[in-house]
């Protein structure tokens, strides 16, 4: 069994030059929020859950999320073998009726 695991929903809003994203888990608890500057291909983490709020975690997260954002939309799987991290993004059906 995994020791560290975050799963949930990632909601992204494309605002033209930037994409804003928020990740929250099954219970609705926010775990991560970030902005992606398309032109500069830079990630800015605006909010992160306490356990992950370490400078070295955020630094690596920014690098990995940049790679994720470059490959979206569609199914994205990124593996960071050095730190044994795996990111899996699976698009949900775009049901906006709610």
């Amino acid at each position, binding site marked *: 069994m995994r020791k560290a695991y975050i*799963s949930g929903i990632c909601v992204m809003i494309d605002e033209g030059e930037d994409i804003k994203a928020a990740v929250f888990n*099954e219970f609705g608890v926010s775990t991560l929020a970030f902005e992606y500057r398309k032109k500069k291909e830079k990630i800015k983490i605006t909010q992160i*859950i306490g356990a992950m709020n370490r400078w070295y975690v955020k630094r690596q997260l920014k690098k990995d999320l940049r790679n994720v954002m470059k490959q979206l939309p569609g199914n994205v799987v990124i593996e960071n073998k050095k730190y044994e991290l795996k990111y899996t993004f699976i698009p949900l*059906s775009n049901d906006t009726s709610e």
Partner: protein
Amino acid sequence: MRHFLPFILTACMACALHAQHNAVTKEQAAIIREISAASAKIVSMESDFVQTKYITMLNDKLVSKGKIRFQQPDKLLWEYTTPYTYSFIINNNKIKIRNNNRTDIIDSNHNKVFKEISRLMMMTVRGNSLTDDKVFDVTVKSEKKAQGKGQEYQAILVPKRKEMKQLWNRLVLHFDVANKILSTIEMFEKNGDHTIIEMQHVVLNKAIDSNVFNVD
């Protein structure tokens, strides 16, 4: 006598304030007893729910719907049906997450976030979140319902444990006054996000197939 009077007045005010504090506390204790007594009779629960998540950063909200099944003492199935299919099962310390074709099993003892969340969900559904003073500071009151129809009991829970404090500023539980059943859960996060979970069509103490809680 001139010097005595301020002393007497101060003593009287102190007594009046003390008596008032006792009256409020007794009322709260009575409400908690009513809710706890009703919760103690719950062996199982099935419910539909509507979950609305207000996301401050995106200035938007996400509405999802699903079903809950609970079996005493420690089994919970939480299933989202729209706009996505997603479910997780808590069975003792094991958590099973199903998402499309993928299934993951987590030991909550090794995952602090899941451990605290599953603890909260179990305590809330079981009804002992109001009486475990090691976990929450609790204030209860009788209030008018938001829609203006009738009264409800509101319990405001402020986390005491460090792990829960990192997730929530406070939780507000709404109970129907007539049957003391949990009707709504509100979760207020430190970042300003706000989640509302409304229970609908609650069925109590109906037999539930234990296989639905299987995590193996």
